[in-house]
């Protein structure tokens, strides 16, 4: 009986240790600044690119070169900034 109690307490201590350690590791991985900086950059650029491409395709459909492309370039820029705000918000929640 004494033996099993002894084992239980030892198991509990070991599990607590593991928990602390894994929490620490997880936080460490989120705090890599280069990764987050690169993430923000690609979010911004890709939305601008997608917006411009959509405008270009619509232009060739409706034969309105280059007005829709210019319009969608600005919409894409807005979408890029929206993306960056979303990512930055989720980053702040994590910390």
């Amino acid at each position, binding site marked *: 009986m004494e033996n099993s109690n002894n084992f239980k307490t030892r198991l509990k201590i070991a599990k607590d240790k593991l928990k602390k350690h*894994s929490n620490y590791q*997880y936080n460490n*991985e989120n705090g*890599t600044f280069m*990764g987050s900086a*690169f*993430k923000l950059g*690609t*979010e911004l*650029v*890709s*939305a601008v*690119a*997608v*917006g411009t491409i*959509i405008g270009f395709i619509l232009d060739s459909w409706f034969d309105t070169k280059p007005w829709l492309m210019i319009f*969608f370039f600005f*919409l*894409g820029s*807005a*979408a*890029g900034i*929206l*993306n960056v705000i*979303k990512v930055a918000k*989720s980053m702040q929640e994590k910390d």
Partner: protein
Amino acid sequence: MATNPMHQFQVHRIGPEIKIVGIDLSFTNASLFMLISAVAICGVLFLGTKEKKIIPDKFQLISELFYNFIAKMINDTAGSKAKPYFPFIFSLFMFVLFCNMLGMLPYSFTVTSHIIVTLIMAIFIFIAVTVIGFLKHGFGYLKLFVPSGVPIILLPLITVIEIISYLSRPVSLSVRLFANMMAGHTMLKVFGGFVISLGMLGGWLPLGFSVALTGLEILVAFLQAYVFAILTCIYLNDALNLQH
């Protein structure tokens, strides 16, 4: 030719040329390294799960580590509803990780440094997430594009912006992985070329840089696989638990 830093990204055919209905389906070095990483993943996981010891050996330890890591990540970012998608995200993470890490070996080929590979994976994820969203919520999934609390006059503009933002997901997902891998490998090769051209006198500085960059690249290889998987989880979270 060997000093050209872009030479390492060339895809060339191995073995005979196979053409089916005008499409080139020959076996290339890219397919070889995809096959090697798939076999390596299966090997590691098979060895790790063969016998369940109380005190795990190295292979068991590493497979349990991967399992716990991905299970925790899915639980934290997408909630318990995303449990059924564990196999998909696990295989995705392992494939990207092994491709990146195998690319770090000298004379090997980095599959993920080609945008076609990463873009196909990202488009597949994008289509899958969209289909899951429509299956779970029906046309209510379109609410994702209409944020609450926006004045009626601005609504058409905001909706178009949200749709562009949604469509830019696969692009940013694939470009991030591809650009990181290609930039890193090009940089390593350029510094390696400096070592040769500066010789015994001045070659030591770029050699030190190369060593430091190799360490950084191994970090980036892991980090990009992690980011790829975690972003898939975030997109899945949007599709499963509609919040906007």
